[in-house]
């Protein structure tokens, strides 16, 4: 497909959700306020604000948030005037009660995320979100793990529950451009609703894959300022805007303002550079959920094993999003095996 430039590309910036993995969910109220204000002023369509693992994600398993979802959402109630505030909900972690609280605090868009084979656990949440008048997005995570036909089957279920958009989510940053094209093409062909794409940069393909998705007709894409996000991060919002401008696509975003938002608002607040390091590449290569990265470093250090071995093992076991507790399990197992193997040494 060639880009006609007519269809609007909606960019949902998830710096304050997926990007919270990069700061171990420790965004301050000031971070949330300043970043969301800059995004709003630049004209970003959606601003996602939630713990990295969604509503009620604050836990020992995933890391505790510095502030509750209510505190963060209430903080931006009056400053986000043009953009719509989005929240993420993973059924099994968050509940309809948590969604209701977020709506009471001003959320206008709900993204309901499940593993790519488990769409039916989101039925109640998608229906509730639609009934309450929110723009409702079905988010099929780790979509690289299943064939396009399976992704379609699950997307059709989300459509039948009332979703306005279904996303192909490359949670592991494992897809190659052709993997993206085949999934998006099939969904665009068979769904009545809009299709979206969410990238991770573990193999350095986040912007490229997003462009492939746009070329196949998605109208919703995700990014983070300065490429924040789990693993090696998401597509950089400011680069997406620049590139889409060059392609003649309408994002409704002011390029200079989004560049400033990244450079002057987000970058000084980063606690580490967002790079594609060895282990991030291993995430993409082995197809492992990106938010496992920092937890893997911690467990590898504790049990004195190589983080790459842990990630490759997680990939073999086909663990899904949210199974962070498997990391310690595997690190422990590897350490035991190494003890046995090294038992004869002095």
């Amino acid at each position, binding site marked *: 497909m060639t880009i006609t430039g007519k269809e609007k590309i909606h960019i949902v910036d998830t710096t304050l959700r997926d990007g919270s993995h990069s700061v171990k969910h420790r965004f301050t109220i000031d971070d949330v306020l300043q970043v969301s204000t800059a995004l709003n002023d630049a004209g970003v369509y959606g601003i996602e604000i939630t713990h990295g693992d969604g509503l009620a994600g604050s836990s*020992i*398993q995933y890391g505790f948030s510095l502030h509750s979802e209510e505190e963060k959402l209430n903080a931006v109630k009056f400053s986000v005037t043009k953009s719509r505030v989005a929240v993420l909900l993973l*059924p099994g972690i968050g509940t309809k009660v948590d969604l209701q609280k977020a709506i009471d605090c001003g959320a206008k868009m709900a993204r309901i995320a499940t593993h790519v084979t488990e769409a039916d*656990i989101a039925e109640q949440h998608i229906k509730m979100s639609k009934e309450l008048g929110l723009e409702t997005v079905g988010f099929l995570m780790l979509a690289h793990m299943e064939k396009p036909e399976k992704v379609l089957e699950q997307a059709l279920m989300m459509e039948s529950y009332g979703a306005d958009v279904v996303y192909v989510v490359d949670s592991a940053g494992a897809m190659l451009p052709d993997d993206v094209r085949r999934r998006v093409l099939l969904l665009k062909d068979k769904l009545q609703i809009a299709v979206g794409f969410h990238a991770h940069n573990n193999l350095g393909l986040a912007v490229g894959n997003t462009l492939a998705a746009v070329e196949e007709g998605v109208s919703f894409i995700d990014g983070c300022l300065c490429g924040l996000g789990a693993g090696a991060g998401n597509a950089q919002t400011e680069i997406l805007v620049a590139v889409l401008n060059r392609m003649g696509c309408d994002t409704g975003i002011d390029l200079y303002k989004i560049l400033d938002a990244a450079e002057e608002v987000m970058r000084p607040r980063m606690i580490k550079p967002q790079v594609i390091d060895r282990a991030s590449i291993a995430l993409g290569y082995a197809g492992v959920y990106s938010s496992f990265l920092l937890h893997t470093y911690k467990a590898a250090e504790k049990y004195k094993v190589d983080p790459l071995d842990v990630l490759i093992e997680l990939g073999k076991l086909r663990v*899904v999003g*949210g199974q962070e*507790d498997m990391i*310690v399990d595997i690190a422990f197992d590897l350490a035991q095996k190494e003890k046995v193997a090294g038992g004869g040494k002095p």
Partner: protein
Amino acid sequence: MSEKIDVAIIGPGNIGTDLMYKIKKRSKFMNLKLMAGIYSTSEGLKLAAQQGVETSSEGIDAILADKMIKIAFDATMAGAHKKHAPLLKEAKIKAIDLTPAAVGPYVCPVVNLDQHYDVDNLNLITCGAQATVPVVYAVSQVTKVKYAEIVATIASKSAGPGTRQSIDEFTQTTARALMDVGKAETGKAIIILNPAEPPIIMRNTIYLIVEDQDENAIRGTIDNMLLKLQEYVPGYRLRMPPIFDDMKVTVVTEVEGAGDYLPSYSGNLDIETSAAVAVGDQLASKLLCKER
């Protein structure tokens, strides 16, 4: 005086059928007299008939009409159990509820059954609670548990439509049980479905924030609890020794099912039906004592 108490199952689905085999195989004090459903063609009813159990497609009415039945296991759905509960109570039949209806108090056989012998309706909470509350309760006996968080991972294949449609109720009920039955001050539950093939067995990570980190006492109380739990769920075991960091204790367990009817990976279903038999047997033995 009979040697066994007559019991019935309503709901011949996967859970009810597994329970049927478990009662036939393991129960000391129960005689499974009747299995009732609402479809005469149901596979569960056929299998029950093959085991020599009387069957009926008259649902709850068949149980109410049988004056010998003293205990009924409800393996239907929450909505149905809410209708069955008052009828069973009126007929003076004790109800052991395997649905999330929670008409009666939450019961975990190794923790609080002794407090509930006299109630007419006992709820078996959730599989996640049956698999984690005993550990939380055990630790709460040696130190205050300020916070308990559990992550239950089960095979996608072992989660039926009931669980999928009421996933919020699973997390909310389990969290409440961590507090009410497990005695943690605050509780949180997370459930994850994993579609890997071959299916994974149920796995539970139990994180506790405790007041007093006495490692030996905590290890000892967990080991004791495991022995009790293994009496009715032999496939329940620790994945690794408990991990202690500061005031945090991490306990990882897995549950392999007995494979009575459901496949052995569905330890999550097995622990529910096993708990049901354990509760039923103890209630039946009390009733037998009374008869004597």
